[in-house]
């Protein structure tokens, strides 16, 4: 089992959700994050003084899937969220050693 974390541009979330459900992903968890990277932030003004905002709003998607699905999920994420412009984001793959569905106590494959 792997956990796939993707950091994407917020307005791409819906496309991503649709893409993943289309390939049979049953669930995912998202959160509001802020990103720092090649895509620079911008300067704002408050009552006459300028300040930098270096962190850009992003959305993080976490989806845990069985290992054999990983490549497909990654492909789907990339194609659903790629705009070709700086700041599109990243996908990271992390190992997962176990999963439990709280409602039923089911484990691993059955849990997701």
């Amino acid at each position, binding site marked *: 089992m792997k956990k796939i974390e993707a950091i994407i541009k*917020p307005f791409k*979330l819906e496309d991503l959700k649709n893409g993943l459900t289309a390939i049979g992903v049953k669930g995912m968890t*998202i959160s*509001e994050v802020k990103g720092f990277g090649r895509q620079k932030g911008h*300067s*704002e003004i*408050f009552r006459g003084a*300028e300040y930098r905002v270096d962190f850009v*709003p992003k*959305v993080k998607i976490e989806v845990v899937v069985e290992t054999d699905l990983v490549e497909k999920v990654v492909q789907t994420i990339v194609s659903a969220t790629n705009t070709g412009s700086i700041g599109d984001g990243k996908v990271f793959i992390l190992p997962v050693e176990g999963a439990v569905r709280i409602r039923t106590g089911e484990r691993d494959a059955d849990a997701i």
Partner: protein
Amino acid sequence: MKKKLLLVLLLLFWAVPVFAGDEPPTVESNAAAIALVQTHADYVWTLVAAALVFFMQAGFAMVETGFTRAKNAVNIMMKNLMDFCMGSIFYWAFGFALMFGVNSTGFFGTTGFFLSDFTPGGDPWVLAFWMFQVVFAATAATIVSGAMAERTKFVSYLIYSAIVSAFIYPIFGSWAWGGLFHGGGWLEKLGFIDFAGSTVVHSMGGWISLAGAIALGPRIGKYTKDGKVKPIPGHNLPLAALGVFILWLGWFGFNPGSTTAANKDIAMIFVNTNLAAAAGAITALIAAWKLFGKPDAGMALNGVLAGLVAITAGCANVTPLSSIIIGAIAGVLVVLSVIFFDKIHVDDPVGAISVHGMNGAWGTLAAGIFNIGGTSAGMIGVQLLGIATCFAWSFGTGMILFAILKKTIGLRVTPEEEMEGLDFGEHGATAYPDFQASTTLS
């Protein structure tokens, strides 16, 4: 104590300038003094009412901000603030003269630019009257900001607000209301009834809103490729509700203040205004409940405003019972109208077209239908003529104005800016930096 004495003297002095202050009062001096006290009451009432109408600017700002997204909140506030400021200056320079100056043709006034009707020492009534009129002009102007919200270039909006306050609003206004001061227009001469401005102020703003919304096109994401409506929920409904309460309060200056005199007529106008608003909210709520299965808050708020707009024309010449009927119909009308404009993909984020345009028209018609003194085909005809003329003038000039802005400096921000929000794009600001935004309504 010395104060009261002083007053008597003052009164006598004003009243009978020929005598010295210590002359004993006469029947004539008393009569003049009475008229003077009444005049003072008129000034106080007219100006207090003007202050209440001014406060409607805050109400519009709150409603429009509450009904739109957090990323555009600063921009909407700025538009509502600056259109009043631009309007004040341009109405002072041009608008008031065109609307209320001496008007030989019946089409616009030609005297009183830059408030030149007032000379120190002269009768200050022109100033009290101007103050009451400028807040009306600004109301017409600010209505539009809601319909054009979340996508309009700030600089273009400033220019729009200047033009409306200087020319578009006052010229039509001179046709219907010029006779309230030095002017006199063709429409009022026909007996057109629009006591406080369902047509002159609200339809005017509503139809320019329609022109603006069409000229701009819908916000990105409002309608899906397959034509479905994808609502963009407002970011702060409590603020919107506060705005509606403030507008309701302001309307107690807007309608009764239009007497510009402290007299007994204001009582019925207060009652009618209140009952129409209440009825509008209730029927809008019921209509929404029936249609959508839930008592939709946004529609109830629009219902209040619809009732207020609809009673504005007839508030002084219909009975309280008629006011309830007028408001009740307005409440249903606004719900249907909002749905209609969404169906034809005219994106009006706050419902300005339905609230002010449609119900301004309805209210003007109703003022003829429910007239206490009885109605007539001719009366209805004149009301319809006024409604149609207002539509033609304001929608037409609005379309032209926005087309010119489009061709020249541009009317709409870039898609990138629209996505990121106008607060940053136009003002380099963030409305709520201390709160974690939720970008994932989805």
